[in-house]
């Protein structure tokens, strides 16, 4: 009797150490990595320009433009919520910075700080309204999406007299702001946008928070089952509002890149990009239902999207078919992702 008990304990696979390969394969981002490899090899073969070092810089930059926002969007999705206002929120942040600095003739950095307050405020508003009303985040942020879209146009016209913000290129603080948010440097022949570096840094920080800290556990918990999380003492409200404010922070950062890259921002921009961010997170292994996903995965998702988008151009295919190619490649990447994940789950 006793010997049987010992035998079952040692054979219990719930506590036994699994092989490194098995553990690696059960990570959420592994499927997207394989998908990315497939896309990469595909374009390396079909598009000669894709292989050049200059193209690498462009692809990384395009990925960073998407990936920067995919970081908080993935966090939010793991926490079980959606945000449809992210695309226009980026524009709002950029416009606020540019318009404030110009209208009050102050150092551009002051505009940047005001924009930060506004962007994080929008996130806080989303989170607060969500927790207050209990409505689905889909609806709450859809409302914010329209409000921001309207405000972007309306306020810009009132203040600037036209539909784009005034140029701030000749104002104090522009060059230092540009150095931080929108400069470019060279490693050998590869020219890298600083946004790419920031993206890598933010992916690393967010990943660390998610996997190694208590807050990270809370995020998984509220996304998996908010009621159960609340029962074991997780501050659900604070975590969710905090996640929306994180989205606000990243929207601010992306908005500052927009502003310092172009010196003025068009008020109609950003519509439709919210879906691209969500696609990157989902391709990267986030579940639409919450409680599961990864930040590194969102980065790989952004990379897949950018490689496909620019790969079609590098391959020199007829542009009429562009969107069809894009959709097809994304579906393929996601299916590869799914197959790998299912096989990993079987082990």
């Amino acid at each position: 009797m006793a010997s049987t008990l010992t035998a079952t304990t040692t054979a219990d696979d719930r506590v036994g150490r699994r092989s490194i390969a098995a553990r690696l394969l059960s990570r959420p981002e592994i499927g997207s990595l394989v998908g990315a490899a497939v896309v990469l090899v595909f374009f390396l073969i079909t598009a000669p320009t894709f292989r050049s070092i200059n193209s690498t810089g462009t692809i990384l930059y395009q990925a960073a433009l998407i990936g920067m926002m995919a970081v908080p969007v993935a966090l939010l999705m793991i926490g079980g919520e959606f945000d449809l206002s992210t695309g226009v929120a980026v524009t709002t942040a950029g416009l606020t910075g540019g318009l404030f600095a110009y209208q009050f003739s102050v150092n551009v950095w002051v505009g940047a700080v005001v924009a930060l307050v506004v962007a994080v405020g929008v996130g806080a508003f989303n989170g607060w309204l969500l927790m207050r009303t209990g409505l689905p985040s889909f609806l709450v942020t859809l409302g914010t999406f329209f409000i921001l879209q309207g405000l972007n146009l309306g306020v810009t016209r009132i203040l600037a007299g036209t539909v784009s913000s005034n140029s701030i290129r000749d104002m104090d603080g522009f060059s230092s702001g540009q150095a931080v948010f929108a400069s470019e440097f060279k490693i050998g022949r590869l020219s890298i946008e600083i946004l790419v570096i920031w993206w890598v840094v933010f992916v690393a920080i967010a990943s660390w928070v998610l996997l190694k800290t208590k807050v990270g556990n809370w995020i998984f918990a509220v996304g998996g089952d908010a009621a159960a999380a609340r029962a074991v003492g997780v501050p659900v409200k604070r975590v969710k509002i905090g996640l929306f404010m994180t989205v606000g922070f990243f929207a601010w950062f992306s908005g500052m890149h927009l502003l310092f890259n172009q010196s003025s921002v068009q008020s109609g921009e950003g519509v439709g990009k919210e879906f691209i961010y969500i696609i990157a997170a989902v391709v990267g292994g986030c579940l639409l239902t919450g409680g599961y996903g990864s930040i590194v995965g969102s980065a790989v998702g952004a990379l897949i999207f950018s490689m496909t988008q620019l790969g079609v151009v590098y391959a020199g295919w007829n542009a009429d078919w562009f969107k069809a190619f894009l959709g097809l490649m994304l579906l393929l990447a996601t299916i590869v992702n799914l197959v790998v994940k299912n096989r990993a789950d079987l082990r």
Partner: protein
Amino acid sequence: MIRWQKKAVATGAALSLAIALAACSSSGGKQEEQNNGQGGGNVANTPRMKIAFITHAAPGDTFWDLVRKGAEAAAAKDNVELQYSGDPEGANQANLVQTAIDAKVDGIAVTLAKPDAVSANVKKAVAAGIPVTALNGGIEHWQDAGAIAYFGQDERIAGQAAGDQLTKVGAKKAICVIQEQGHVGLEARCQGVKDKFPAVENVYITGTDMPGSTTTMTSKLQQDKAVDYVVTLGAPFALAAVQAVDKAGSSAKVGTFDTNKELVGAIKDGKVQWAVDQQPYLQGYLAVDNLWLYKTNGNTIGGGKATLTGPAFIDKDNVAAVEKFAANGTR
């Protein structure tokens, strides 16, 4: 809201105010903006009338801002109450025409870029005794729809003018950048370019995503090193193209359709070579003014023929004449 959040917001607001007071910019900004003092002038003493101005504009496009300013200037002068609206979807724009009929306006100015969708409702307006002027798009359709006048350019002819320009400056290969896939007028422009300059390839970008537009153009220039001219179909995209050329390490030159304040500066600095100008301000102005003339005196501008507002070229030689008006945001 929780207490710590309140505190954070309050601190943030106070901090930004403090920095704002301490950190005025020594150059640029509104303080340097010239106040040109737009002239007062007299307003027509004819009875107040209501005119609906309905375009297919996507929100936030600088081109349409110029059209609107022209329309507003004419409205102010003619004692007209202007109701401006727009929607890029053909069916939605048609609906806007219907609502103008329902509201019994005195006149309608409308773009016919999507004639199949909008024409039926324009005919309804005409049948209801509301005069209609067409502008910007629909040079082949405005008469069928029953409009009294048309103000704009023929997109294909404008494209051909740009194509001739490419040939004249000895370009070898060009790309024509379309910011809205499936837009009839934009396709016609690029087709016009191709008529006169066959070595051109269309490239599609997403007009509402400026950094993405830049990277798409960059990748095209990296892929095809033979491209030595980029033709864009809107001023903001020309500025993005300048960035793309720079990023791709290409020596391609940039020409464009349409202008705005920033673009006029870019032509002056030699970053953009030329712009095909269709005088959007004039289109808006004339479309409204003609309705007023028609109602008060039975006139039609153009005498039953289309009135062309373009294509004229703005380049380094004549940019100075345009510059001061561009600073007002009207060119």
